């Protein structure tokens, strides 16, 4: 059974959510979408159904947020709640249904970015946490961490400075470069705090995309195909295989007639499936129920 960070939304069942919820977090320009664009086809090739989702992509509030941001009169509390509306719409209408259908959900940012952005804008940390305490705890959070020094050239020489990424709503009248540095540093500090609190898996995002991706793939595999875990059921299966091999060996070396018949009698019977959950390629056996 899955868990939330506290409260449960009405009508939300936490059982039968066999999919995997994998979060890619990081500040602007850390390479989150690049990594998701690499991970998604790779997972699909392995045979997994994948849902990728991200901020402001909800049917309900996506366009509303974009329009509100164009007008530049979006207040800080309003902004925080508009993003919460967008998140909960995607959470209820996309993320949870996909998990129920056994999908791997790759989400570009989750509640942590939303909390960090709100906190940096002066919102009370407990207030913003209380709103997002209805969210599911994910299976993993990969935090693509990058310092401002490495981030600056990436952003500036590719897409230039963005009003919101530079926190210009917070620093009106400031030079956009100063705004960018101030805002991103504040975000980074908040992310580091959240990383500790929510036990993010920190990934050094200053490396090239391929290196980061190789690292992420290995980590993702550990979550979705835990074949080499030292789970009790794995040991049980191992013991079963061992005793099977012993019997075969004994039968072969005894050299008596009608080996098939004898074998059928003397082989240990397999434990019932209910006792030994089989190792699945799509998800860990332990979390199915």
């Amino acid at each position: 059974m899955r868990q939330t960070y506290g409260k449960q939304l009405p009508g939300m069942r936490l059982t039968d959510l066999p999919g995997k919820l994998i979060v890619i977090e990081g500040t602007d320009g850390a390479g989150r979408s690049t990594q998701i664009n690499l991970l998604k086809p790779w997972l699909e090739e392995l045979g997994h159904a994948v849902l990728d989702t991200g901020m402001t992509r909800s049917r309900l509030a996506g366009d509303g947020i974009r329009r509100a941001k164009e007008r530049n009169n979006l207040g800080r509390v309003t902004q925080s709640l508009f993003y919460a509306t967008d998140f909960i719409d995607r959470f209820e209408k996309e993320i949870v249904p996909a998990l129920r259908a056994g999908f791997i959900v790759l989400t570009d940012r989750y509640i942590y970015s939303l909390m960090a952005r709100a906190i940096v804008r002066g919102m009370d940390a407990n207030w913003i946490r209380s709103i997002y305490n209805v969210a599911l705890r994910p299976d993993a959070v990969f935090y693509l961490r990058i310092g401002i020094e490495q981030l600056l050239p990436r952003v500036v020489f590719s897409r230039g400075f963005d009003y919101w990424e530079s926190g210009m709503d917070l620093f009106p009248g400031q030079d956009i470069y100063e705004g960018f540095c101030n805002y991103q540093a504040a975000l980074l500090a908040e992310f580091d705090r959240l990383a500790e609190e929510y036990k993010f898996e920190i990934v050094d995002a200053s490396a090239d995309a391929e290196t980061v991706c190789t690292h992420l793939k290995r980590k993702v595999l550990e979550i979705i195909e835990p074949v080499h875990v030292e789970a009790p059921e794995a040991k049980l299966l191992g013991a079963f295989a061992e005793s099977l091999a012993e019997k075969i060996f004994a039968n072969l070396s005894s050299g008596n007639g009608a080996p098939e018949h004898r074998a059928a009698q003397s082989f240990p019977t397999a434990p019932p499936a209910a006792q030994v959950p089989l190792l699945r390629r799509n998800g860990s056996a332990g979390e199915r129920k």
Partner: protein
Amino acid sequence: MGISSSIHIGPYEIFYPLTPSISSVQQYGQHNLPGRLFVVEGIDGSGKSTQLSLLHKWLEARGYGVVFSEWNSSPLVKDTTKLGKKKKLLTPATFSLVHATDFADRTEHSILPFLKAGAIVLCDRYIYTAFARDVARGMDGDWVRDLYAFAVKPAAAFYFRVPLETAIGRLVGARDGFKYYEAGLDLGLTLDAEDSFRLFQGRILEEYEKMIPEFGLTVIDATMPVEAQQAQVRRIAQSHLANAKELRVHP
């Protein structure tokens, strides 16, 4: 990891924590503002809007600067709410959030700045509407109360208490039928709009009753004649205006 988490970037020092205009969300905004906030609450058909507009005229006639803000009217959020309602996209949670977003925009643009300027702000429906409706839709009461923690505490919140049948009697024929979300049809309680309205608004009335002691709502008996209710409302409003600055809009 080889990543420095220094707070100095080149010659620039980061000022963190930041100091925004609303420094932090306060529990129901215990702001000490020169203006006064009056709000009216009650189910549809309770007559609260009529009473508020009479109060509005009276205050204006006395020379106060009066600003009116209606539930669910933010120009920034209205398209989103409209889309959600029209396409029936809203769940109890997103219904709650989209209204909180609307309320936040009005707080930041239409309520707080005017209270800071010393005006009288009148709100037709306030956070109590959200608490009643969202809890009637199945949301957790504490979660919704936390959501609205940034709201300014009103000087007085008038609750127009009316029996359900009286309200329905006033509504039938007074406007074109019962609306989908107002009648709680999204909850699938029953297919008949009037029955659904009765069930849903009945739940809402129960929530209002609980909030009277919780938030100290001022109960007005909405079955009394309009004039008698208004006299009561004015008397109470008056008692909160003793030290209010009188901003004359049209000197």
